[in-house]
C-alpha cells in the first residue's frame, strides 16, 4: 500500500471541495467542542460539589450518643425470656458526653493503615457576650492545623489564618454570622460564658464562613485546650472524633467495626449524604448522553457527505481502478478522507472547547454559599481531551467505513461502459 499517493489523492479531493469538507469538519468540531465544554464544566461542578461535601465531612464521625438501652434488664432474666415483656416510658440513662478512653482510641485509629488522619473535637455550649448582647452558640475545640490538612477548614476562613488560632490559646475563630450580628471584627475581644456562668475573654483572630447561615450564626472554633478549659475538663475530654480515610469506600466497614468494638456511635459518609452520590452519577450520565448524541449527528453528516462524494466520484473511482489502484486502495482513499475530516475537525473542536472552557473559567460566579469560589468551576483534565479526539476519530472512521466499502465494490467496467 502506497500511503503517500493515497493521502495525496484524498487531500486533493478534500481541498477541491473545501466548502463541503469544512462543513463536515465543522460538524465534528461542534460535537467535540461541546463535549469538551460540557464535560469540563459538569465535572468541574461535580468536583466542586464533591469537595464541598467530601472535604468538609469526615468519612467516619464517632461520638457518644445518648439513647435508651436496647436491652432492658427484664429481658436478661431467664424466667421472663419466654414472656412477652412490655416496658413503658423507657428513658435513656444520663451518660457522659465525652468519648470514653478517647486518647487511646485516637492513637489506635491513627495506627490503622486505612486511615489518612484523625482529629479530635470538643463541643461546648456557650453564650457569646459582647457589650450588652448575649447570643447562644457552640464553641468547637479543634486541632486547627490538622483540620486544615484533612478537612480544608482554611478554605472557609474568610479572614485570618489557621496559624493565628494555633499560636494563641486565648483565641477564637468566630462564625461570620455572629460577628455580623455583634458588629465584631478581627482583633476585637469577646467573652464566652458557659452554662455554669464562668466567663472567658477571647480574642478574635479570624472569621469562619461555611456558607450555611445556620452554622455561621452559631458555631465558632477554638483550640482543643481552650474548649476543654471553658468546660472545665481535662485534656482527655473529647466529644467527637472525625476520621478521614485513604479510600472513602471503606467508610461503612470502618464505621461498623468501631460501633461493634468500642460501643460508640459511628456514622459513615454515605449514610450521612446519601443523596449526593446520586446527583453526581446523573449529571455524568447527562453529560455523556448529550455529547454522544452530538457526535452521532456529526457522524451522520460525514456519512452523508462522503456518500454524495462517492456518487460524484464514480468516474474517478473507475479510472483509479482501471489504472491499477486496487479496491482496497480506493477504500483507503475514502476512509482516510473521513479520518482527515475527523482529525482536523476534532483538533479544532478541542481548541474551541478549551477556549470556551477558559472563558467559562474566568466568568465571575460569586455566591454566599461558596466563599471559596469566585468564578465558575471548570475541570481541565487532559483525559477528556484524549477521549474527545479518540471519539472524533472513531466516529468518523465508522461514518467513512460504509461509503468507502461501497467505493471498494464499484465495478469500473460498469461505469466506463455506462457512458
Amino acid at each position: 500500500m502506497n500511503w503517500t499517493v493515497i493521502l495525496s489523492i484524498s487531500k486533493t479531493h478534500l481541498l477541491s471541495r473545501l466548502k463541503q469538507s469544512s462543513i463536515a469538519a465543522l460538524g465534528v468540531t461542534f460535537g467535540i467542542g461541546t463535549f469538551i465544554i460540557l464535560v469540563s464544566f459538569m465535572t468541574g461542578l461535580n468536583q466542586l460539589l464533591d469537595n464541598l461535601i467530601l472535604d468538609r465531612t469526615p468519612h467516619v464521625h464517632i461520638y457518644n450518643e445518648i439513647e435508651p438501652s436496647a436491652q432492658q434488664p427484664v429481658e436478661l432474666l431467664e424466667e421472663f425470656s419466654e414472656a412477652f415483656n412490655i416496658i413503658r416510658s423507657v428513658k435513656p440513662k444520663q451518660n457522659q458526653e465525652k468519648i470514653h478512653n478517647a486518647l487511646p482510641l485516637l492513637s489506635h485509629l491513627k495506627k490503622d493503615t486505612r486511615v489518612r488522619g484523625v482529629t479530635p473535637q470538643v463541643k461546648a455550649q456557650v453564650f457569646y457576650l459582647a457589650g450588652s448582647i448575649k447570643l447562644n452558640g457552640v464553641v468547637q475545640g479543634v486541632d486547627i492545623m490538622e483540620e486544615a490538612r484533612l478537612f480544608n477548614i482554611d478554605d472557609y476562613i474568610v479572614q485570618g489564618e489557621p496559624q493565628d488560632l494555633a499560636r494563641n490559646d486565648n483565641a477564637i475563630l468566630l462564625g461570620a454570622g455572629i460577628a455580623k450580628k455583634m458588629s465584631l471584627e478581627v482583633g476585637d475581644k469577646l467573652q464566652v460564658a458557659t452554662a455554669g456562668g464562668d466567663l472567658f475573654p477571647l480574642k478574635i483572630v479570624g472569621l469562619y464562613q461555611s456558607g450555611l447561615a445556620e452554622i455561621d450564626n452559631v458555631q465558632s472554633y477554638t483550640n482543643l485546650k481552650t474548649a476543654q478549659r471553658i468546660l472545665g475538663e481535662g485534656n482527655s475530654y473529647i466529644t467527637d472524633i472525625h476520621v478521614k480515610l485513604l479510600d472513602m469506600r471503606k467508610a461503612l466497614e470502618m464505621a461498623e467495626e468501631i460501633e461493634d468494638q468500642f460501643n460508640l456511635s459511628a456514622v459513615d459518609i454515605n449514610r450521612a449524604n446519601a443523596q449526593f452520590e446520586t446527583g453526581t452519577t446523573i449529571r455524568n450520565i447527562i453529560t455523556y448522553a448529550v455529547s454522544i448524541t452530538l457526535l452521532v449527528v456529526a457522524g451522520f453528516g460525514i456519512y452523508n457527505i462522503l456518500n454524495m462524494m462517492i456518487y460524484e466520484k464514480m468516474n474517478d473511482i473507475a479510472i483509479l481502478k482501471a489504472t491499477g489502484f486496487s479496491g482496497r486502495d480506493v477504500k483507503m482513499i475514502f476512509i482516510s478522507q473521513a479520518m482527515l475530516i475527523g482529525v482536523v475537525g476534532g483538533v479544532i473542536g478541542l481548541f474551541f472547547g478549551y477556549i470556551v472552557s477558559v472563558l467559562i473559567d474566568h466568568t465571575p460566579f460569586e455566591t454566599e454559599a461558596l466563599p471559596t469560589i469566585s468564578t465558575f468551576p471548570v475541570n481541565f483534565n487532559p483525559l477528556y481531551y484524549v477521549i474527545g479526539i479518540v471519539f472524533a476519530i472513531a466516529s468518523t472512521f465508522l461514518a467513512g467505513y460504509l461509503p468507502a466499502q461501497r467505493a471498494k465494490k464499484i465495478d469500473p467496467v460498469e461505469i466506463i461502459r455506462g457512458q
Partner: protein
Amino acid sequence: MSIEANNKVLEARNVNKYFTIPVSFHVLKDISLCIERGEFVSIMGKSGCGKSTLLYVLSTMDTDYTGELYIAGEKMTGKSGEELAAVRNSEIGFIFQFHYLLPEFTVLQNVMLPGLKLGRKSADEVRHDALEKLRLLDIGEQADKLASRISGGQKQRVAIARALINQPDIIMADEPTGNLDSKNSENVFNILRQLSHEQHLSLLVVTHDHDFAEKTDRIIIMEDGRIVG
C-alpha cells in the same frame, strides 16, 4: 517455445462470457486470440457484437468469464483483485473513448498517479518521466493546468501519456478517436502508430472507424460474439 511465449504479449484461449441480466445472453463465444509484441491490432464490429466486452475481459477488469487469459506469458485467470490491479498498473495502459482524467488534479498529476502507485521510482523520477511523455505528445506546456481546463484533443493526449507512464507491455484503447474530430483523430492515430513503430509497443484498439482500422497491422472483425476475420 520460450521465444514464442515471450513474443506473445496477450493471449486469450476459449473465452466465453454470459450476461445473465436482464436475460441470459451468450456475449463472447469461444474467443481465442493472440497479440505479438509490437503489433498494432484493431477490433471492429457492429454495436453490440461484444467487442468492448472482449476488451474489458482482456484488460482484466472483467473477471466474470470462462476460458484462460495470459498477459506477457503469465496466466491472469483466477488471480485476486489486488493482483489484477497490480497487473493493470504495470503491464497495461488504458485509453478510453471519454478521456477520463481526474478533473481535480493537474495534467501532470494525472499522468504521474499510476507511476506513483507502482512505486518503482521516486516521485521526482516519475515527475521527470511524466513531463517527458507529455513533451513527447506535444502538451508539455499544459502540465500544470487542471485536467478539467484543457481541450478534448489535449485530454486524449494526456490519457495516452498516462497509459505510457509505467512502460506497459500493451496499450488497450476503447474508441480512442470516437469522441474527436477528424484532425484530432488523425493526430491520435499518428501518435499510436509512432509508439508501436518506435517503442515496439503492442496496441489493441476497439474502433468503429474504418479509416483508422485500415491503417493498423491487423484487423479482427467480430460478429455476434465471435471472431469472424
